[in-house]
Structure formats: structure tokens, C-alpha cells
């Protein structure tokens, strides 16, 4: 076809002009071929990520492997896969209240913490992303310091503070204590997402006669729905993985699963199978929800600043 030929020649010519200008003799085709050969699109791109992922998954595989073994198999010999697979360890956890109550306790305080954190962080993040006000920068910095604060520093004073209020061994105590690092995190992440929404939307809504609460709930929150989801995920996660404060503030009634696990290790040091099964079950919630926020993981870990 004449047309296609003509286009090809024109492209060729423009390619030569570009390279002439840059004192190089390569045509665009050659450049593209070179790029393919160098790195990005080579056939072996998958080696590094695959090796890395295999290394990451090995210890996790070992835990899963152990959770399906009987204690005698674990102790007697090193087997690469369970020779006599058993779900006995999981049955133990799901039938013994002292085990499964740990999960329920953890989930209760984690959900409470997520709800509280997001509820207070939403208006604050809006204020930071839209307005300048007296002391805003100092306040933002102060919030950051709380994300950086070592939990070890707060363990003892938290214990005394919540004792004074008679809140020791309640879910709300842990939920409030975890706000220390989750509220700043939520504010930072949400502020990042809110700054991406043009301010004209706010102004148009106000001109249309929306009041602030109605605008915020009806128009603004749906716009940053993904941001709220990501913030929820990170609050959930950081509250879920924290142990020191949760363990310090609870004794029996609200004891998290993580603390129950450490107790078992020190008490018997023998029941490896159940311990492994409990560990696997603590990984599951994170593994299940991460798929929904996969595109925003980096943004969340970077405190909303990518």
C-alpha cells in the first residue's frame, strides 16, 4: 500500500533528523532494538525478582510446613514437606478458647483503633490539605514525632495512665494507645490523597449551597474513597503487628493473639506445631487484604508522601 510506505519513509526521515541533530547515526528502530537488548525488556528480567521472592517466601513456607506436621515429626527429623500431613494443630486453635479468643481480642481492638483513627484523621487531614492556620506546620511536625516515638518509651506510662482510668485489660485501652502512631499515619496518608483533589470542587460545592458536613460526606469522601481504604489498611496493619504496647496493657480478658503466642513459647517451648499454626493464622488477614491496596502500598509506607 502506497500510504503505509509513505508513512514509513516519513518516519524514517524524521528519525534521521533527530539523530543528525544529536550527532548520532542510529535510527529509531535501532534505538528501540538497543533498548530491548539493554535491561528492561530482556528475556531474563524475571531472575532477580524471582530469586528475591523465593528467599522471602522460604521462611514463611517453613512456618506453613511446620503447621501441618505433628510435633513428633517436627522434633524427630528435618523434613522438607509434611510426610504425614495433619490439621490437628489448626483444630486445637479453633477449639481451644484460650487460643481463638486471642484472635477475637486482636480483631476487636484493631477494628476499634481503625475506626477511631480514621474518624478523627479525616477532618484534620482536610484542614491540613486546604487551609493555612496558626501553628499548622508545628502541629504537623508534632504528629510526625509521634509516628517516630519508640513504643518502649510509652509502655510504662501507658500502663500507669490506663490503670488510673481503670481501663487495663480492656480493648479500648489498646485501641486508644495504638492511636499514638496510627492517627499521625492516617493524617499523613489522607492529606496526601486529599491534596490530589482540586480545590475548585470544594468551591463549586459551596456555591451550589452545600453545607460543609454535607459536602464532606456526599461529595468529598467518595472522591478520596481509595485514600480512605488505604489509610484503613495501614491503621489495621500497624495495629495488628504491634505487640509491646498491646501486651503491656492486657492481662487476660483482652490479651492479643501475639501475646498468647509468646507465652506458649516460654511456658513449654515444645508445642511447635500449634505455635506455627497460630503464626500462619496471624499472617492471613494481611495477606488477604493487601491485594485491594496493591497499587498504593508504597504511598502508605511512605506516610502518604510518594
Amino acid at each position, binding site marked *: 500500500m502506497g500510504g503505509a510506505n509513505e508513512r514509513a519513509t516519513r518516519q524514517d526521515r524524521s528519525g534521521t533528523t533527530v539523530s543528525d541533530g544529536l550527532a548520532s547515526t542510529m535510527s529509531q528502530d535501532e534505538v528501540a532494538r538497543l533498548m530491548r537488548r539493554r535491561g528492561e525488556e530482556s528475556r531474563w528480567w*524475571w531472575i532477580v525478582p524471582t530469586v*528475591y521472592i523465593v528467599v522471602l517466601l522460604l521462611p514463611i513456607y517453613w512456618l506453613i510446613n511446620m503447621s501441618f506436621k505433628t510435633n513428633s515429626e517436627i522434633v524427630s527429623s528435618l523434613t522438607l514437606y509434611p510426610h504425614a500431613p495433619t490439621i490437628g494443630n489448626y483444630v486445637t486453635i479453633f477449639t481451644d478458647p484460650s487460643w481463638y479468643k486471642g484472635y477475637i481480642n486482636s480483631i476487636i481492638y484493631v477494628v476499634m483503633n481503625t475506626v*477511631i483513627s480514621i474518624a478523627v484523621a479525616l477532618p484534620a487531614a482536610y484542614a491540613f490539605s486546604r487551609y*493555612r492556620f496558626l501553628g499548622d506546620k508545628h*502541629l504537623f511536625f508534632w504528629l510526625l514525632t509521634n509516628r517516630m516515638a519508640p513504643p518502649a518509651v510509652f509502655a510504662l506510662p501507658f500502663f500507669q495512665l490506663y490503670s488510673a482510668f481503670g481501663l487495663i485489660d480492656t480493648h479500648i485501652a489498646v485501641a486508644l494507645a495504638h492511636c499514638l502512631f496510627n492517627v499521625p499515619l492516617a493524617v499523613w496518608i489522607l492529606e496526601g490523597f486529599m491534596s490530589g483533589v482540586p*480545590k475548585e470542587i470544594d468551591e463549586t460545592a459551596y456555591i451550589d449551597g452545600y453545607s460543609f458536613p454535607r459536602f464532606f460526606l456526599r461529595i468529598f469522601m467518595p472522591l478520596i474513597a481509595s485514600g480512605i481504604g488505604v489509610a484503613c489498611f495501614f491503621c489495621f496493619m500497624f495495629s495488628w503487628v504491634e505487640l509491646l504496647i498491646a501486651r*503491656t496493657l492486657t492481662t487476660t480478658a483482652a490479651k492479643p493473639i501475639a501475646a498468647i503466642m509468646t507465652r506458649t513459647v516460654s511456658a513449654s517451648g515444645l508445642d511447635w506445631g500449634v505455635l506455627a499454626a497460630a*503464626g500462619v493464622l496471624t499472617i492471613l488477614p494481611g495477606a488477604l487484604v493487601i491485594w485491594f491496596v496493591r497499587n498504593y502500598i508504597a504511598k502508605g*509506607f511512605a506516610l502518604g508522601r510518594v
Partner: protein
Amino acid sequence: MEKTWNNKAWFLVLPVLVLVAFSAVIPLMTVVNYSVQDTFGNNVFFWAGTEWFEELLHSDRFWEAMLRNLVFSFIILAIEVPLGIFIALNMPKKGWAVPVCLVLMALPLLIPWNVVGTIWQVFGRNDIGLFGYYVNALGINYNYVQDPIDAWVTVIIMDVWHWTSLVVLLCYAGLVSIPDAFYQAAKIDGASRWAVFRYIQLPKMQRVLLIAVLLRFMDSFMIYTEPFVVTGGGPGNSTTFLSIDLVKTALGQFDLGPAAAMSLVYFLIILLLSWVFYTVMTNYDAER
């Protein structure tokens, strides 16, 4: 975005302020209070002035824990940052592999910290752990329970395993924001792989790298749960980092005064570092 000056915005920040004040300021006040008092029990306190601080600053135990913690932080930064950059550079840029890689790599970040400790406690054992067993099978004498160096190696490998993905994710986020045109221009100029990295990719990753380095430094500086579960601070005191030492003093021995003084010094260091971080960040944002 141009922001309007409006002091009424304070009402929107108020809930956060009240909540964080309750969970941060009041406890810190308690700590300050204890750090300048002494007690013989029964809730009778008397003024001790700067006694605890002087004692702390002259205690070998504190400085040793601090030194150990700093060495630990620098080692893991020296491994995790280059490794993270290297892996991020080799990540797929598009297609089905991207989400799969991201999710699988992020997995260690979502495991409760004591479970991370448990995983490595088991994985490194030379009787029932894959890693310990095969390292010993290779003829290397490895036992993290008795040998301080092996304990360090275990804790460092664990941290690299746990947190390198954070550096990878952040660097990757920086890399995908580079337009294709940059690479094409570099290829036309005949730039080497190193030149592309040095003059295109590294500058674009600067900001995320800054976040990664500082987050990793802060978090490794206050690491507690993982080494505590694996080694319990031992053998001897060889893996007793600042947080482990602090919790031993505060909740183990209930030495309120020394623990409070230590908390304050510790917190001030963190505060100083956060301030440096914040200043660098805001300056960086202002320049762009």
C-alpha cells in the same frame, strides 16, 4: 495548591489534638515526673533532681546498648538500601507480573513482629530449622543461642528479610514515575547503564530514598519485638538494643527513675532526628 488562611480550621484538627495529647503528652509528662524523683515504694516520691540523668550518662550499660543499636542500624541500612535499589531496578515495569511482585514482596511487612521473630527463631535453629540445619550441614558452626556473632548475623538477616521490601516498594514507586522519553534520550546519547542510573534514575529516586533511609533508621533504632523474641537480648547482652534495655529496666525491674531518664534521652534523640527529617523533607518539597 494555594491554601487559604483560616484559623477556624483549628476546629477540624481539634479531635486529633485531644486524642494524641491524651495518648502522647500525658504519658510523657509522667515520664518527666519520674525522671526527677526517687521513691522507696508506697507511692512516696521525693525530689532527685538530675541524679538519674547523671547516673545514666555515666552508665556503661546505656552507652553500650546505644552503640550496639547504632552499629545495628548502620549495618542494616548498608545492606537494605543498595539491595532494595538493585531489586527495584530489576522489577518488571508493566503487565501481570507487577501486582504479583508487589504483593508477594510486601508480605513480610504484614506479619506481626513477634511472628517474624518466631519464624526466624525456628528457621535458624540447627535441629528443626531449614536455615540453621543447612548452614551447619555446610560445615559452618552456627548456633545463634550461644554464639554472639551468630546471634547478630541472625538478627541482621531477619531485619533484611523483614524490611528490604519497604525500600524496594518506595524505590519502585520513584522509578515508575520516570517518563519513557528520559530513557530514549539517554539511549540516543549512547549513555551507559551506569550513566542512566546515576543521572536519571538516582535523582528521580532521591525523595523516596530519603523517606526509606529515615524510616528504616528510625524503626531500627527503636527495634524491640523481633530480636527480643529471637534472642531475648542474649547471649549475654550481645543483642540488647536500647528498647530491650529500656523495657528490662522499666517493666522488668520497675526502676522508675532510671527508666524514665533513659526514656527521655531516647525520646530526645528521636525528636532531633525527626526534626532533621522534617526539615530536609520540607526544604526538598519547597525546591521542586
